[in-house]
C-alpha cells in the first residue's frame, strides 16, 4: 500500500492511498477534526468524488471497525499483538473444544500452559476482564490471552483438545 501525504494549509492534511488492489482513496483530515473520504472519479481524473464525512468521534469509531477492534473477521480470529516476547492473542472457542463447560480454575490454565487469559468476550459482546478461577468457558466466546508464543500455542491446544 502506498500512502502520500500533503499539507493543505488552512484546511488540514491530505493522505492519498493506493491499495494493492489498485483502488485509490483520498483521506482529508481537517484541522477541526473532521475526516473526509474521497475516491477518484474514473471518468475524470481531476475530480474526486466525496464518499463520506465523519466527525472526530465517528472517525475513531470507524477506525476501530476497520482495524478489527469491534468485530474480528474469521480470518483474524487469532489476531495477535506482539510486545517483544510477550504476545497478546485473540481466539474464539469453537463449540467442539474440550474445555467447554469447565472453569478456568478447574482447568488450571496458567499452571498447565503458562499463558494467562486476560479477558473473555462472550457471544453477547459482554466483556469479562481478568476472569477469576470459577469463570466458565462457553462456546462462541472470544478469549484474549497473554503469554509467550509457545505458551499461547500450548494454551490453544490445551483448550481445544485437552492434554
Amino acid at each position, binding site marked *: 500500500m502506498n500512502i502520500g501525504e500533503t499539507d493543505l*494549509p488552512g484546511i488540514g492534511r*491530505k493522505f492519498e492511498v493506493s491499495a494493492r488492489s489498485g483502488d485509490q482513496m483520498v483521506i482529508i483530515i*481537517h484541522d477541526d477534526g473532521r475526516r473526509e473520504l*474521497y475516491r477518484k472519479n474514473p471518468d475524470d481524473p*481531476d475530480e474526486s468524488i*466525496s464518499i463520506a464525512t465523519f466527525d472526530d468521534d465517528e472517525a475513531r469509531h470507524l477506525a476501530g471497525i476497520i482495524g478489527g477492534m469491534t468485530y474480528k473477521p474469521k480470518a483474524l480470529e487469532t489476531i495477535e499483538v506482539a510486545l517483544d516476547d510477550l504476545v497478546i492473542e485473540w481466539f474464539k472457542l469453537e463449540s467442539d473444544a474440550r474445555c467447554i463447560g469447565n472453569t478456568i480454575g478447574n482447568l488450571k490454565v496458567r499452571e498447565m500452559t503458562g499463558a494467562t487469559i486476560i479477558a473473555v468476550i462472550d457471544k453477547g459482546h459482554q466483556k469479562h476482564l481478568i476472569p477469576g478461577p470459577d469463570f466458565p468457558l462457553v462456546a462462541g466466546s472470544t478469549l484474549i490471552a497473554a503469554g509467550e508464543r509457545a505458551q499461547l500455542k500450548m494454551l490453544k491446544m490445551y483448550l481445544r483438545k485437552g492434554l
Partner: protein
Amino acid sequence: MDTLIFEVGLAIALIAVVGVFSTKLRFSVIPFYILVGMVVGPHAPHFGIIDLRFIESSVFIDFMGRLGVLFLLFYLGLEFSVGRLIKSGKSIVIGGSFYVAINFVSGLLLGWMMGFPLKETMVICGIMTSSSTAIVAKVLVDLKRTANPETEVIMGMIMFDDLFIAVHISLLSGLVLSGATSWTGVLFTSLTALVFILLFIVVGRRLMPWIDKALNVRSTELFLLLVIASLFLVSGFSETLHVAEAIGALLIGLVLAESVHAKRIEQLVLPFRDLFGAMFFFSFGLTIDPTSLGGAVWVAVVGVLLTIVANLLSGVFAGRASGVSAKSSVNIGFTLVSRGEFSIIMANIGKEGNLMPAVQSFAVLYVLILAVIGPLLTKESKTIYGLFQKVTGRVQARE
C-alpha cells in the same frame, strides 16, 4: 455611559443575526458584517434606549475592531510557516510569484487609470492582491473539492500571497503611516520596518528555548495571560517604531509558530480572533457612509474585472507550472478570485493614514462584489470552462 454594555451587546447581536442569515444563504459572512455596520452607521434612526448609531460605544467598538486586526494577523502568523511553504514545492513559489505580480500590476493599472496618487495606488495594489484565505478554504470544503489535485496548488499559492501581504503591509506602514513626506524619509521608515522585522524573527528564533520554557505552564489562565501580554506588548511597541501594530502582531505570531506550544496557542486564540475579527469588519462598516459608495461603483467594477482576468491568467500559468489539467487550472484561477479580510485590513491602513476616503469606498464595494461572486465562480468553474471550450472550439472550426 450606563448603556455602554447594552450598546455593545446590540452590536454583537446584530453581527450574530447577519452571521446566521448569511450562513443560511451560504455566503461568506465578512461582507455581511461590513454591510450591517454601514447600515447602522452614524446616520441610522434611533428609538429611545435602542440607539443603533453606537455613539457612546463607538470608541469601544473601534477598539475591539483594532484588537480584531491584531488577532487576525497573529493567527495568520501562527499558521504560517516558511518550512511549509518551501515544502509545498517550486511550482507553488513560481505560480505564487506570478499571481502576486500580475495582481499587483492590475492594481497599479487601476490606480493609474483613476489618477490616484502613489500612496493610494499602493494601498489599492494591496487590496487587489490579497486573496481571502478564509473564504477560499471554506468554499473548497463546502464544495467537497479538498481532495482535488489543484487544491494543494491553491492553498500553497494563498500561503505565498499571505507572505506577500506581510511584506506589503510592512512597507505600506512605512509609506502611509509614518507621515514622512520626502522619498528619503519614506525609504528610511520602510527600511527601519524591514530591519525591525528581520531582527525580530532572528532574535525570536534564538530565544526559542527560553520562550518554550516560559510558556511551559499548566494553568490555562496564566498561559493565556502570557500569550496575550506578549501579543499586545509587541504590537504596541512596533507602533512606537512606526511599524504598524498589525505587523507586530504578525511577527509575534510568526515567532510563536516555531514554539512547541504553537498548537495550544492557536486553540486558545481562535475564539478571540472570531469575536474581535467580526467586530473589526463591523466597525469598518460603521466608518463608511453608504451614500459615498455611489461614486466608487465604476472603480470597483473595473477593479473586479481586472482581478478576474488577472486571476484566470495566473491560474492557467500556475496550473501549467504544477502540471495539473487545463480544467483544474481554470479552477485555480476562479477559486483565488475571492477577496475578504486582508483587503479590508489594507483599506483600514489607508484609513489610518488619512488617505482619500475613495479608497475605502472602493475596498468595500470591491470586497462585497468579489466575496459574493468569487464563491459562485468557484462553484461554476466547470461550467464556465465547458462554455469556454465550446466557444473556442467553434472559433477554431470557423478558421
